[in-house]
């Protein structure tokens, strides 16, 4: 009975969603007005950054990204404080089965490649699809693989917090440097170089590399905290 009511309500909701969105008219005039052309134009002419999405995230809406990184930091802190226990049993995890030798040998082989791919993704964030958040997530999956494959693989929480804090402080420092040199917080004050060069876009790659380190450290800390949880 309850399920029938839920299905009926969802059908009504889905009908109105479909009426609203199923005929979007991709050739309409609204797709070519708005801020899109401003962003695309300024990204090439002023910032010399190939990836427009990166330019928006780091430069045009850099303050927004600072808030986003803060939200991630708050989530990690909240997780740590919710799961806080006086006695920590590090070393004997019960949630994990012992990994087979194929998994442990293979993950040792593939771990450096995952780290390298993550570093590539966030260093080239202003040229190709990708960036700090994506690269940091890839690095964290590498650490997740190692934590699953080796039961005694341990990461120092202190090292993680040092990396995280310095990346966050670096982000704010670059914002303040823009304040001193250009006039606004997070202004792009460095030379922008040539389009599609590795060192181009001024402050954008620097900030995205810092974001990559911060995200990688935070996600690894999250995974480590949850995996070391005993029920």
């Amino acid at each position, binding site marked *: 009975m309850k399920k029938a009511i*839920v299905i009926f309500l969802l059908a009504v909701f*889905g009908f109105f969603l479909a009426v609203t*969105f199923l005929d979007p008219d991709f050739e309409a005039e609204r797709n070519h007005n708005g*801020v*899109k052309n401003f962003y695309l134009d300024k990204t090439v002419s002023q910032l010399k950054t190939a*990836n427009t999405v990166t330019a928006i995230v780091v430069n045009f809406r850099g303050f*927004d990204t600072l808030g986003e990184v803060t939200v991630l930091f708050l989530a990690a802190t909240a*997780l740590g404080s919710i799961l806080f226990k006086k006695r920590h049993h590090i070393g004997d995890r019960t949630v994990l089965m012992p990994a087979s030798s194929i998994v442990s040998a293979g993950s040792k082989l593939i771990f450096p490649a995952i780290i390298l791919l993550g570093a590539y993704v966030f260093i080239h964030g202003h040229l190709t699809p990708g960036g700090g*958040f994506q690269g940091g997530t890839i690095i964290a999956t590498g650490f997740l693989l190692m934590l699953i494959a080796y039961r005694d693989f341990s990461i120092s929480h202190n090292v993680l917090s040092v990396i995280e804090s310095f990346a966050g402080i670096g982000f704010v420092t670059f914002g303040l440097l823009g304040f001193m040199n250009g006039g606004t917080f997070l202004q792009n004050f460095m030379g922008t170089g040539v389009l599609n060069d590795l060192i181009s876009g001024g402050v954008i790659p620097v900030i995205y590399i810092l974001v990559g380190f911060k995200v990688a450290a935070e996600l690894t800390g999250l995974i480590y905290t949850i995996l070391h949880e005993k029920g």
Partner: protein
Amino acid sequence: MDTTELIRIGVYGTSILLILIGLYAVLTKRSLIKIIIGLSIIDGGIHLLLIGIGYIKDGTAPIFSPGSENAVARMVDPVPQALVLTAIVIGFGVTAVALSLVIRLYRHHNTLKIDEIKNLKW
């Protein structure tokens, strides 16, 4: 059926379907883990919907890689993509905090079924 039609039915239909599946899971399932999975599915559907709204006919990615510097007129809207990047990170944070609350509840009540957790009823 041309590409635009395919994208219209495929992307928009799939995203609406994902939102509905996620809402169904949140409303009817009893297990807390399944409710969180439902929330994540709703998240995915909304992200797909936002990305789909930015599409234009014969669009390409808004990236000025060598060879496509002059394709500005065909580039899709980059603003929804930047917004979705933010939304994914926020969704991740929500999922992590929700899972930690579930771990905490499981530690207290030794069950994941919301029917058996009497403290939730008033």
